[in-house]
């Protein structure tokens, strides 16, 4: 699924790096715990989170996560936007809550893969 399609599915606004919206993601990860993201995410993931701080962008960078969508209407700070812009990470925002966001993406065909088996 392209990030553009994911954004439409989530009724999300793209905050930065919109020109990269044709990139593909293979799965999504919904978490407010960055250590869990590092433990379970493998590749080409759309990260969904309600967490707002610079460590979300640092985690995305370290994990090669191409796109981060902030749920529940959360808005990233300018510092986060600037860092994401520089690192080539697409930021999105949606007013949908986490559960509904994950459900909509799953229903639209984003069904996992690329995550560690427990």
């Amino acid at each position, binding site marked *: 699924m392209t990030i553009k399609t994911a954004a439409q599915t989530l009724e999300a606004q793209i905050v930065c790096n919109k020109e990269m919206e044709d990139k593909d993601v293979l799965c999504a990860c919904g978490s*407010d*715990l*960055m*250590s*869990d993201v*590092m*433990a379970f995410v493998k*590749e080409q993931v759309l990260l969904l*989170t309600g*967490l707002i*701080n*610079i*460590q*979300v962008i*640092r*985690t995305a*960078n*370290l*994990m*090669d996560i191409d796109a981060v969508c902030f749920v529940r209407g959360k808005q990233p700070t300018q*510092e986060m936007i600037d860092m994401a812009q520089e690192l080539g990470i697409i930021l999105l925002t949606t007013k949908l809550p986490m559960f509904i966001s994950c459900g909509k993406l799953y229903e639209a065909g984003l069904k996992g893969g690329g995550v560690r088996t427990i």
Partner: protein
Amino acid sequence: MNLHYTIPGDNFSLAGFASADVKKKLKEMGYNSAVLKRVAIAMYEAEINMAVHAGGGEAFVEITDTYIKIIMKDCGPGIPCVEKALKEGYSTAPRMIQELGFGAGMGLHNMQENSDELDIESTMGKGTTVTMTIQLPPLDTDEIF
């Protein structure tokens, strides 16, 4: 190549700078994404721990043709029980840190999972030294680690 970083203890938002820099350097050297992530996760978690629990510290990084050795040294309160701390889900982090997205007991676990060798020396009241060694694949092959 030898690198040295000072990890600040008073500014949580700066934690992660050193691991991002090491990842960038390894990427420039031509290492694949899998090994970059292992190094980045192990060092990033150690940086976060240093910032959260120990008031900062120092990181010494040695990169050779075959391995990277990361030594994280702090003068914090020490780890009361290393064995417990290594268990998934065990955490002594204050609630404020958990609200920042860390401190859910996966930090040391992630460091262990992503290191080929992990050594933790901790003395209560004196500090902790964490040494992580990760094997590096030969640069002239496509071998995935």
